[in-house]
């Protein structure tokens, strides 16, 4: 199936209701959900991500597009599972202990799903044990988000707890810097949602 232009555009423009309509219609019409995902939805998020890194779109537009993407994914996800769709790799993401900010984290999660990863979303206020459990469930990378200068130091606890595991720890959020990531020995740092995908791609050796 070729790219569904209508769906691609509806996601880029963040038209949540329209995305739901198109996806529902396509599914009812017997379209392949894997193709919908791979040929229209993932390219739409990638397109937004590319524009974002060129400063052609900003966070508000990204959030609105991600919300539309999420609405579409919600419909196809159960079908994808039963279709035996193979994700690129499995990663987990969560906001660290003491912190409840999750809008940025949700955007990162959506971009990763949009890039073809299976994302185990641990929610907010996650302690090291929660991340460890996700690694035990098969997550190859651990993404931690913190928005408060008061909760950021907990990332150190997480990297230390996961030091012996093979999972790569990637950190991000407004107060976090590359310098801090290096200091606490995290495997990676991402400045924004698009960066997060690039760092994960690189660390897991998924795309060159």
């Amino acid at each position, binding site marked *: 199936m070729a790219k569904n232009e209508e769906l691609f555009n509806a996601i880029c423009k963040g038209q949540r209701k329209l995305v739901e309509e198109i996806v529902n219609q396509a599914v009812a019409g017997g379209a392949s959900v894997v193709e919908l995902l791979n040929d229209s939805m993932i390219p739409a998020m990638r397109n937004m991500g590319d524009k974002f890194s060129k*400063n052609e779109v900003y*966070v*508000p537009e990204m959030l609105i597009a991600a919300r539309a993407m999420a609405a579409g994914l919600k419909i196809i996800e159960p079908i994808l599972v039963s279709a035996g769709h193979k994700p690129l790799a499995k990663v987990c993401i969560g906001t660290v202990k*003491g912190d409840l900010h999750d809008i940025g984290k949700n955007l990162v999660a959506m971009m990763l799903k949009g890039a073809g990863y299976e994302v185990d979303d641990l929610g907010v206020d996650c302690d090291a044990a929660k991340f460890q459990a996700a690694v035990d469930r098969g997550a190859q990378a651990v993404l931690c988000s913190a928005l*408060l200068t*008061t909760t950021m130091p907990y990332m150190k606890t997480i990297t230390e707890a996961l030091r012996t595991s093979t999972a790569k720890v990637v950190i991000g959020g407004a107060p976090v*810097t590359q310098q801090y990531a290096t200091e606490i020995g995290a495997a990676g740092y991402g400045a924004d949602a698009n960066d997060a995908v690039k760092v994960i791609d690189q660390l897991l050796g998924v795309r060159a």
Partner: protein
Amino acid sequence: MPLHIQLGSRRVSIAAEAHPTLAQLLERAGLHLNLRCGGEGICGGCRLQLAEGTFHVDGVTLTLPAGSRHEAFACQTRVLSADGEIIVPAGSLLETGGQIVSEFHAPNANSAQTTSATAPLAAAVDIGTTTVALVLLDPATGHILARASQYNQQIRKADDVASRISFCRTEAEVRVMQELVIGQTINPLLAEACAAAGVQTGRVERLAVAGNTVMEHLFLGLPVESIGRLPFNAVRHIHPPCEAATLGLAMRPRGSVDVVPSVAGYIGGDIVADIHAAHLLSRGGESVLVDVGTNSEIVYAQGGRLLACATAAGPAFEGAGLLHGRRASPGAIEHVRCDTKLDFQCDVIGGGKADGICGSGIIDFLAVGFRCGLINAHGRFDIERLQHAGCYAQSPLARGSSHACVLVPAAASANGQAVVVTERDIEQVLKAKAATYAGLKTLLTLQGRNVRDIPRFVLAGGFARHIDLANAITLGLLPDLPLERFEVLGNGSLAGAYLALTDAAALLAMEHISRLPQAIELNRTQDFEDNFIDALLIPNLNTEEFPSVEIHS
């Protein structure tokens, strides 16, 4: 080893030592930079340009020939060469002085009355995160003898509340903060007000303060660490009166000090004071109070019931984090008008030339820009129109660049640098206004109420006195209500402290108020994220919530 510093048209030379950071060197020379993140290299408040010399920047050694313009953060840069030259933009300096935020409405703040030469005096203090305001009064008559305000000197260590909490990891650090707000801020204000009134500071027998929970804790020397993370609990909310000498206040040593009680970690005594001063309870009916600021608080009152929440808008409304943003003090653009030819008319505080833009100015700019079609609903410029009108500029970012609109050309500005607003700046403002509006909508929706049905809308906080209400509605910061439903309270926190001193029943009433509000955790509610995303657009993704705002497509 001299270091030459260019500050606008002023030139200063100081002896440079290799070890401290530029921020520390400048601080020793009395030039306080904006270190709101506590000098951690995060906020970019201390941005400056390296013009010549060898520097150690972010772990890398750089040698720059004369005439260079290398942007760096002062807190992350050291000078290595024998001499060097740097350029400090005005926006990176922490101006001292502060805006006059001591205006408020209080029933008996009658300045026509007089005071006998021996009557005991009192001082009411509003401890803001940014600005501290004090009034000296005769508590028996309510007569105000003098007013004074200045920046909260804690700002030298860290700018926002969370960064101050991060700073206070030990008891000693809490004491540093306490000394900064009492010894370096309130005592000088007491001295200034007493000097203006021609009285001795020893005549001040009572003092009452109101502020957010963290400010009140630091004033009393209480630890704040627990307020910094979940579940954001404070040590206590009701503070017993104490003796002035125990806090080191420069007034009568046996004088008594009262602190207005608070509600929760992020709903402080300032909000309790606002509620009391605005008669939110006693006037009955249904009303909303919003204290707009770095941390916007929202209170919903309905027949004796109170609900409150805090939405962390961020410092954009105080001009921080914007390329040419600055606080509302002389030199800041406070209002902007424009015609369809994009001929911008700017009002500058103090009447002189501008070197930056403050919160009320940026609200105007976005609203008028949106109305004339220069800025679209996503906060993006119509580049062709900007170019056509000759106002287009490009401003470099860490990665890539951002489109910008020139408000004041270089030749007409105070420092020879054009004052511009970038699309990045607009994004910051949109996040701040979205957090405020989304908090309001989420709180009211929980009550089954619609924002547009609120009969009385009180705006508290110093900043709210200066904003153009119609423009704030166009932006989508305030709900689309008829203007006559808004009431501007002014500095309600100071008014509450004033009432605590002049009205014997006030403190008790505020203690009662502090126990009432049900604090709503916005992050625990499902709707907030959706409302926040909707509110990132101008005026809102749901345009039907803003029927009076004309939408261009």
